[in-house]
C-alpha cells in the first residue's frame, strides 16, 4: 500500500492505495466522486476524463500511486463557486449537448481542456479533439455546437438545435 496525497477540486485528500488502484476507482469509490464514469476500461470512450495538473487524462488507466502531489479536477469541480453552471456547462444545457448524461462528464472535461488550448476552435478542430470521447446518444451535433458556442462563436447559422 502506498500513501498518496493529492488535491482534488481544491481540497487536499490522502489515502492508502494498492499499486493497482486506478484514479477512476479512487475518485469513485474512495472519494465518492461518482461523476467520473467508467465506460470501457480501455481508454477509448473518454467518460472518465479528468484534469491532472491542468491536462485532460483518462482516469481509468492512470495509477493513483503515480499521482502523489497531483492537482486533480473532476466534473464535480467544474461549476462556478456559487454552484451555478459554468459557461461551458451552461452551453451544453442550452444547446442540448447531452441526453443520457453518462459520457457528459468526460465530454465537458475534454471540452474544457480544448478551450484552454484553443479558445476559438473551428468545427473541424472540435470534432478532431473529441476523437477520444464517444457519445452514443447525441450524434455529436449538439456537443460540437455547444462547445463552439461556449467559445463565444455564433452558432445560430448551424442547422437547427
Amino acid at each position, binding site marked *: 500500500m502506498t500513501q498518496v496525497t493529492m488535491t482534488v477540486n481544491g481540497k487536499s485528500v490522502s489515502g492508502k492505495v494498492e499499486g493497482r488502484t486506478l484514479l477512476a476507482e479512487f475518485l469513485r469509490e474512495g472519494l465518492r466522486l461518482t461523476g467520473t464514469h467508467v465506460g470501457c476500461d480501455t481508454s477509448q470512450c473518454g467518460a472518465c476524463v479528468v484534469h491532472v495538473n491542468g491536462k485532460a487524462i483518462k482516469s481509468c488507466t492512470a495509477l493513483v500511486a503515480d499521482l502523489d502531489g497531483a492537482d486533480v479536477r473532476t466534473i464535480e469541480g467544474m461549476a462556478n463557486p456559487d454552484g451555478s453552471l459554468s459557461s461551458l456547462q451552461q452551453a451544453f444545457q442550452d444547446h442540448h449537448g447531452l*441526453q443520457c448524461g453518462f459520457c457528459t462528464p468526460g465530454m465537458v472535461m475534454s471540452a474544457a481542456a480544448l478551450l484552454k488550448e484553443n479558445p476559438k476552435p473551428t468545427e473541424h478542430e472540435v470534432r478532431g479533439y473529441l476523437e477520444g470521447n464517444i457519445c452514443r446518444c447525441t450524434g455529436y451535433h449538439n456537443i460540437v455546437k455547444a462547445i463552439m458556442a461556449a467559445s463565444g462563436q455564433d452558432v445560430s447559422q448551424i442547422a437547427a438545435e
Partner: protein
Amino acid sequence: MPKDHGIGASSKRREDIRFLTGRGAYTDDLAMQGQVHAVMVRANVAHGRIVSIDTSAAAAMPGVLAIFTGADFADVGGNPAGWLIHSRDGSPMREPKRPVLAHGKVRHVGDAYAAVVAETHEQARDAAEAVAAGTEIEELPAIVDMAGAVANADNRVHDEIPDNLCFDWGWIEANRDAVDAAMKAAPHVTTLELVNNRLVPNAMEPRASIGEFNPGTGDYKLTTTSQNPHLTKLLVCAFVLGIPEHKLTVVAPDVGGGFGSKIYHYGEEALVLAAAKKLGRPVRWTAERSESFLTDAHGRDHVTTIEVGATLDGEILAIRTNTLANVGAYLSNFSTATPTFLHGTLMAGPYKVPHVYVNLKAVFTNTAPVDAYRGAGRPEATYSLERAIDKMARELKLDPVAVRRKNLLTPDQFPYTTPVGLVYDVGNYQATLDKALDMADLAGFEARAAKSRAAGKLRGVGLSTWIEACGIAPSHLVGQLGSRVGLYDAATVRVSATGTIQVMTGAHSHGQGHETVFAQVVAEKLSIPEGAVEIVHGDTSKIPFGMGSYGSRSLAVCGSAMDRALDKIIAKGKKIAAHMLEAAEGDITFENGSFSVAGTDKAKSFGEIAFSAYVPHNYPLETLEPGLEETAFYDPNNFTYPAGAYLCEVEIDPDTGKVTICSFTCADDFGNVMNPMVVEGQVHGGVAQGIGQALVEHTAYDENGQLLTASYMDYTMPRADDVPFYQVDHSCATPCTHNPLGVKGCGEAGAIGSPPAVVNAVIDALHRAGMTHVTHIDMPLTPARVWGAMQA
C-alpha cells in the same frame, strides 16, 4: 415567436443540471451499506459441454463468500421469450430454456456458467479466474454461419432442436400464391441479396445490477440498468425466481442509454438477487465493456434476398423477401417479435404495393442473443426495401426520386390497409420528400459534384423514404400476433394540497428527457408553471404498472395515459368547483388554469381546488372522495406511423475507398412535437447510429465463434469526426389520429431511415463515375470494401 413554455417549446432539460455537475445517480454510482461484489465466470469457447466445475480452490481464496454454478439454478425457471411465433406449418416456435447460469452446455463466448461473490471486486475477480481454471469444458464445433446452421442437422446449439431452426415464418402465408403469381407476371424483377450487419448497441453505461434482501421482511430490491423496471420485475418474479411479485421492488435509477439492449431481463439480475438472499448482504455486479460486447443483446444480423416486381416505368407490383435472422444462442425477450412483427409488417414501406410476402427463418447460432436494437426490425425492412427500389430504378434507367414519387401513398389514400397487416392512419409522404429535396438543395447537386471531381473525389447522393410502426402497441392486436404481454402504459397524477404535481409514469427516461417534456405537457394542460411539475419514473414501488420505454412509445402511449389521468383530475376539479361556487357541474369550465362558472366571473384557481381537495371543509364529502390523485391506463388502438425522407450526400476518395458524409438531411413527420429541441436531438442520435451501421460498425465472429470485435479498439463506434452537422426538419406534420396528443414517436426514426440513404449515395457516386458494375456493397462500407468493389 416560438413558445417558451408548455407544448411546443424547446424547454431546456432540467435533468441536465445533475448530469452536468456529476450528480447523476447511475446504478454503479450507488453504494450500499455492507455490499459485496459478484463477478461472472464466462465461457471462453462458443460451444462446449461442461464436464466438471471444481470450485474448491476458489472457495478457499481470501474474501470469497459464495460461488454459484448452473446447478444452483437448475430447478428455477428460465428467462422467457415474450412472443410466441408460429411457423408456416402452424407449429409453435422452438423455445429452449434460458437459464440464469448455463448448465450442461455453454452456447456462446461469454455465456456465464458460474458466479463468484466476494468482499471486494478484486477478490471476486481473482476467484472467478480460479473457478475458470477448475472447470473442464469439452469444446464442440461452433455453429456461427446461419446457412450452415440450418444445413447441418447434427451439430446443434440446443440438443433438442434439430436444424437449429427456431421458426419458419410466412407473412402473410395466405398471400403467398398471389404474390408468386404477381412476381412471375411482372415485366421486370429486381433481385438483391444483402446482409444487415450485426451491431452491438453500446449504451455508454455498461449494464449493472445490485440485489438486496431484507431477511426481516422477506423483501427483495433490485437496482438495475433497465428501460422497463416493471417488466423486469414481472420476469424475475413470475418466470425465473418465483418471488411473489409484491415482495420485489425494481429500481432503474439514472440509466446511461439503452437503445433496446436494456429492455431485456438478463441472468445477472436474478443472480444478484439470489446471492443477496443467500448472504443477507447487498450484492453488486457491473459489466466491464468487454462483457457488454459479449453478452448485451446484439442487433440486426439478417441475410435477405429481396425481389421487387415492377412495370418498366417503375410501378411496384410485388415484393417478396426471404430472410435468415440470427437469434443467437438463446431467445432474448423480444427476439422473436423483432424479425417478425416489427419487420415483416413494414415490408410495404410507404408505398402502394398490391402484393407483399415475407418469409423469415430464425436461426440459433453459438453467438450472443440478438434482439431489438434502435428501430428493431424496421431498419432491416427499410434497408431491404430502399436498397432494392434504388437498384430497380437503376436497372430501369429511371430517376430514384421519381420512382419513389410514383409509388408513395398519397394523402387521400388514408386510412390505408397494407397487404402485410397494418392500417396506416395518416401521412403526407410527398410533403416530407419535397421538403428533404429542398433542404438538401438537390438542384445544386451537379455543381457540388463537379467541385468534388475537380478535387479528385467522387460525389453521390442517396435517398430513402421510410415509414415505421411505433407507439408500441395495441394489446388486442399484439395478442393476436403472439405477444405474451399487454403493451399499454400507465400514469398517476398526484396533485398536492399546495397545487404542485407529481406524475408517476410507466415510461422510463434514459436519455429521452421525459422529466422535462412530460412536465411541459402537464403544464400546458393545467396552465401551471413547468417547475410545479415533477416526473417520477423508474421505481416500481412508486409508479403504476407500465411497460417502460422502447419502440418510440413513451409519449404516444404513456403520454396518452398521462393525458387521460389529467382529464380525470380536471373532471374531479369541476365537481369540487361546482360545490364551492354553488353552480351545476355542467356549467363549470376549465380554462387558463381556472375553474369558472360559464358566463360569470365566479372562478376558483387550480390551486384553490387542490387545497380544497385536501382540506375538505367546504367540500361535497357525501358524494366525492377527498384528495386529488388519478391514475389512467392507456392502450392504443393502433400503432403510430412516423415517416419521412432522408437524403445523404457522400464523397468517396477513389484512392482509398474512404467515404465521407458531406451532408445528411432529414424531413420527418412525427405528428405533433412537444419539444422541438429534444425531438431534433433524438433524430441526430439515430442518424449517427445509422451512419455508424452503414460505414463503420461491424460485429465479427470468427469460425470458432470467438468475438473479434469485443472492445472499442476493435469495434468502431462513430465519433465526432465521422459525422457532419445534420439538417433536420419536422414541419411536415400530420398529427396521429388516434391518440390525444397527436404524437407519433421520434426515437428510432434516425436509425431506420439513414442506412439505405448512405449506401444508396455510395452506389450513386460509383455509378456517376462509370462503375456501373457495382450494384451493391454490404455494410459497413469500410474503405477496404468500397475500394475492393471499385477494383472488381
